């Protein structure tokens, strides 16, 4: 059984976030959740093909980190990427239309769910090969240092990806050269059907940087404010020129690995337990009400707004035409 953390155990009521901040996090996390639910539906209807990995349950990680980041910082991740893109400010329409493989998508239908990018929003993908983003993110950080542009790259990867060799080759270089990168392990406790205990000799993944002199910290990845605070420290350290930090976000994915995963490797009770006690959105919702920042009606209003955005994106994604056949041979080489 996966190691679970009880919600309230380590969950601090402080550091305090302001009313506007909390409302913002609530809204952004809800956008990701509703977007993903809709993507799941479109998949069932055959409008999305191939692999589709939903981020439901992990929303606090990207929203907390985004809240800590500065303009110009970059993000890179794996194939479970819809949440990261929305957090970066990419449009729901463009993301959903990429999922349906239409010309209105961020990669004009050529990349799909796992491979999407936005230069404008400093989002560098969307990578289908487990672990690749860690070296790539390290390279983006190398470029930051080279250019002295003061930007930090945030590289996200999974607990499963944490066993790829290139992760440690990258750790070594990043620490050796004090590169401005923050490594985020999204430890959702499973890599496909493999629980962390079955794949990792050291299950406290934040310790994985120790022999490279990379400080690590375990963070409640279901608590958006805790994520933000840890992110701020790590980003500041990187920006100062002190090199990488490794943050292990303890989180959980509610759905199967991809759409075709029956998820028989964990119990229904385990999933229900997390949903009931650790849900990142419910947590902020409870805070908002408890602190008197919002009542049920105000939250419902936000919900309606979000639903409208998501519904519009689903429509756009169905209306947008398929890419022109001429696109087949474009973008293979620059200038060719």
């Amino acid at each position: 059984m996966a190691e679970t953390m009880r919600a309230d155990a380590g969950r601090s009521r402080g550091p305090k976030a302001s009313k506007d901040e909390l409302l913002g996090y609530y809204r952004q996390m809800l956008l990701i959740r509703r977007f993903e639910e809709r993507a799941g539906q479109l998949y069932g209807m055959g409008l999305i093909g191939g692999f589709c990995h939903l981020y439901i349950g992990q929303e606090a990680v990207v929203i907390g980190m985004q809240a800590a980041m500065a303009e110009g910082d970059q993000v890179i991740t794996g194939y479970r990427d819809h949440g990261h893109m929305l957090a970066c400010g990419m449009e729901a329409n463009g993301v959903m239309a990429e999922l349906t493989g239409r010309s209105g998508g961020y990669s004009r239908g050529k990349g799909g769910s796992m491979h999407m990018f936005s230069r404008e929003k400093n989002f560098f993908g969307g990578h289908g090969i487990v672990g690749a983003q860690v070296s790539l993110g390290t390279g983006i950080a190398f470029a930051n240092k080279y250019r002295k542009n003061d930007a930090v790259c945030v590289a996200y990867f999974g607990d499963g990806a944490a066993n790829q060799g290139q992760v440690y080759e990258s750790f070594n270089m990043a620490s050796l050269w004090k590169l401005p990168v923050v490594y985020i392990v999204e430890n959702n406790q499973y890599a496909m059907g493999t629980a962390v205990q079955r794949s990792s000799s050291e299950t406290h993944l934040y310790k994985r940087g120790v022999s490279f002199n990379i400080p690590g910290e375990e963070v409640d990845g279901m608590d958006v404010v805790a994520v933000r605070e840890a992110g701020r420290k790590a980003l500041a350290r990187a920006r100062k020129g002190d090199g990488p930090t490794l943050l292990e976000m303890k989180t959980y994915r509610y759905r199967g690995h991809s759409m075709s995963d029956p998820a028989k490797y964990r119990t229904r009770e385990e999933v229900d337990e997390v949903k009931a006690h650790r849900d990142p959105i419910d947590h902020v919702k409870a805070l908002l009400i408890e602190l008197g920042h919002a009542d049920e009606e105000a939250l419902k209003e936000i919900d309606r707004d979000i639903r409208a955005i998501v519904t519009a994106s689903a429509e756009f994604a169905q209306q947008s035409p398929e890419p022109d056949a001429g696109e087949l041979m474009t973008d293979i080489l620059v200038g060719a």
Partner: protein
Amino acid sequence: MSLQILMPALSPTMEEGNLAKWLVKEGDAIAPGQIIAEIETDKATMEVEAVDEGVIEALLVPEGAQGVKVNTPIAELRNDDTASPSPLRGGSAAEPPGRGADVTSADSPPVAKTDPSPARPPPPTPSPQGGGGLSADPEIPAGTQMVKITVRDALRDAMAEEMRRDRDVFVIGEEVAQYQGAYKVTRGLLEEFGSDRVVDTPITEHGFAGLGAGAAMAGLKPVVEFMTFNFAMQAIDHIINSSAKTLYMSGGQITNPIVFRGPNGAASRVAAQHSQDYSSWYAHVPGLIVIAPYDAADAKGLLKAAIRNPNPVVFLEHEMLYGTEFEIPDVPDWIVPIGKAKVRRVGRDVTITAHARMVGFALKAAELLAADGIDAEVIDLRTLRPLDTATVIESVKKTSRLVTAEEGWGRMGVGAEICAAVVAEAFDYLDAPPTRVHQIDSPLAYAANLEKLAMPNETNIVEAVKAVCYRR
């Protein structure tokens, strides 16, 4: 009010599934979230969860029904909550949810009840060899009983038989044991052989490929599964630098009896990084044996041969063929020799070469061409290294025309190699320049229309054949 529960779509390649098990019976009251059935897709058994509350009025599809098309109503639910006619009709998979909400309405057309066939799928019916086959197979003794089996199960049986026979054989890879294989190819192996011989690895291809190569140096016979060959690119250094070259570098002292296997090539809509054909990559390398079977008999017979072979073998399977059923000889130890192509259809007008999934397209093309009066010979290469050019050349000497078909990119490809061999050894027999059919020269796009345009199929083969026959 009556609602229909529909067969949900649960995977990228799913068009139909088997209704493995009903967990409710007619007359049962069910609640939302209750698991009502198990459905087998090409990859997994999924639970179907009820969305609505009600009483099961009728099970429209019997337990054990095979090949139930997505969206077919599978049960009828009586729901007396007429006050709130929810737009949700039907079932969804428990984890993840299957068909979304607004897929269909209550008044979808009435469905013909599937006739109440036996609850279990009937056992495979043996039939004499040659039924349905195109030409009697010289490899199979006359009168041999044939049984139907999927490519997936044929591969599994090959591994299981070799593991029973030789304790040095073990299987290692991601999700091969407890999960029963990402594509279910290793289903049941953990139960029979235990976790010492069926080993789940972390996601660390370079590491476990090297570990496998090392174990092989020490005399074990690893079968290393790559979840797909796309991920073997992490490990290609060990496949080539460690496995393929060691015998040579050690002056013949150190052998590397290892099989690297897994699905190769494009699946369905999984885009550029997950859709690559490595046939020519590995076939380029001296020191490797490279096999790419089409049907179940070859999958089984060649995998058994590969496991017994003392050399490193790259064994390229195809995801889109895993679920396909073929007839296979019902003999205790079915082995197919490595390095021999197979003439799958005898013809006199043109030679078509293909391997793996393209063989199916080539056979279809041959049918279409026959209707046009062109009699095509179809050669299934089966092994890419060593390549059986003799069989191809002999055929071209008869037909004088050659079309090669492969799923991967054409440049520097398998077809290029065959053309070179034919031009070198049968130049005087050719009546037309040989032609290659292959994937478009771009990374594979995700968009449905672009993917379709990029991938070769029977139509491309028909066109190429007509071109070399000057019949346009």
